[in-house]
């Protein structure tokens, strides 16, 4: 494969949504991977049928998963005021493990991890009001 071929491939990708392209030619295999970056909010409005957003560069490279709130309510890190928090930064968690509580209308909703991994960042404060889709935890998937 020549440099000109590569240049052509890259140019082809430029105006598309393609994030990964694998080409095999004459015994050579080329794989090109792109990170499209975090779409702006405007972009989200532009494509209302798009349910999943593209991953951030961070998320792609470090296999980070963002746990977002599925409901509106108040975020609590602890099961009760005197208890220890459900999780801390650096802690290993398993899929299904309770990460926090979101209280809505006097009901305590347990929010579970979607993946096995390590808690990298906690994005909200204890007692903070959260809305649907609010990012709560960054978990590095392992």
């Amino acid at each position, binding site marked *: 494969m020549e440099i000109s071929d590569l240049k052509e491939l890259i140019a082809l990708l430029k105006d598309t949504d393609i994030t990964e392209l694998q080409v095999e030619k004459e015994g050579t295999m080329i794989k090109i991977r792109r990170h499209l970056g975090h779409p702006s*909010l405007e972009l*989200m*409005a532009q494509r209302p049928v798009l349910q999943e957003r593209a991953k951030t560069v961070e998320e792609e490279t470090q296999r980070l998963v963002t746990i977002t709130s599925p*409901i*509106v*309510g108040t975020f609590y890190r602890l099961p009760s005021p005197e208890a220890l928090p459900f999780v801390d930064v650096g802690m290993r968690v398993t899929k299904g493990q309770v990460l926090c509580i979101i209280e*809505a*209308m006097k009901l305590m909703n347990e929010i579970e991890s979607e993946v096995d991994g390590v808690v990298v960042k906690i994005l909200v404060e204890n007692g903070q009001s959260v*809305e*649907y889709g609010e990012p709560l935890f960054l978990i590095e998937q392992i």
Partner: protein
Amino acid sequence: MKLFKKILVANRSEIAVRVIRACKELGIKTVAVYSDVERDSIHVRIADEAVCIGPANSSQSYLNIPGILSAAEITDSEAIHPGYGFLAENPHFAEACHTSGITFIGPSPENIRLGGEKAKARQMMKRKGIPIVPGSDGPISSEDSVLKVARRIGFPVILKASAGGGGKGMRIVNEEKDIEQAYYLAQSEALAAFGNGELYIEKYIPDMRHIEVQIMADNKGNVIHLGERDCSIQRRHQKLIEESPSPISTEKFRKKIGDLAIKAAKAMKYRNIGTMEFIVEPDENIYFMEINTRVQVEHSVTESVTGIDIIKEQIKLAAGLPLEYKQSNIRSSGHSIECRINAEDPERFIPSPGRITLFYQPGGPGVRVDTAAYCGWVVPPYYDSLIAKLIVHGKERGEAIMKMRRALDEFLIEGIKTTIPFHKKVLQHTDFEQGTFNTSFVEKITSGNAAGREAVPEV
């Protein structure tokens, strides 16, 4: 009695903007709720606070009762305004608000419940001496009832869903042999759309007018009316153009229909604002049809002729204040017409969502536009297609018509299809000009059935 400190608006688009405007003018803080595809909406931008309550589809967002109540809780909202559609006529929601210590801005749950059981409402009105459209006594239990009632009142008849609205669960029956199919179709449609297959029957009057009366009631049982609106320009039972006064209205007619509306409201101990809908025959017999227990899209027409801000009054009434006006204070001045601009193909009325690339709204004296649309906004495919209301006010009907024609000419929307061309067609039609239309009008002009001619050839 004090007004609320903060109101959560449980709706979207133009009505959310309308309610936020009224709140701001009353010095009340506002909370907008939105689905996650509506982050860039106008109602979100202009509210004091905004809470995302769910994903795009309505059932998980604008119909999400726990989500909305939770949003009210975390923002310390004292009251919720439901707008129209969505949860506005959901008695469970009204009750849930009450249980949560939040004021529901609208009538009582009992009022809403009765309004949503149209067959029962008819029965009640009949008992109280209010003339109703001839038909079944309450809901019908079987196909055989249809034949019985039809033989008594005469064909054609219309089957209607008791829990319904928006033209769904309705079937016209012209003769005996059509009964079976119509019955099963109406019933299954009603069941699918409203979870309730209960039907009732009315005499079908093809050349009737749909004339409704705006009412307001306080907690002491005082009720007034703000005059009538003629909403006969409908397609498949969905209103397209409304006006006030009705072209057939006289002082005598207005008093007659207004008094009937008040009588109906008092009969059901109605609270807050609402609309009594009537069917009017060509010989001007007035029949009660149904109650709308909410603010309506076309409330703006009444605001134009009376000068009263209906949403502000609604909020005050919900806060427990007595009615500010007596019936003798209510004056109707001039003539107002409203066109509902939908994001739809103007000929086939198929929805046309997408990005708006040009949006220039009309202005000048006597022109009002209620909208949440703007250039660059993407009309989402998940919700109803109303994107703007164009309301004009003139000294009399002729001037209002001229104003609406020129306003439609300057309303420039590109990127999506809209019903503006359809409205232009109606406004040029002699039947409309002369006010001699009825609920068959739209069908006549869309099927090319020349019952009237266009007054001016279309350019």
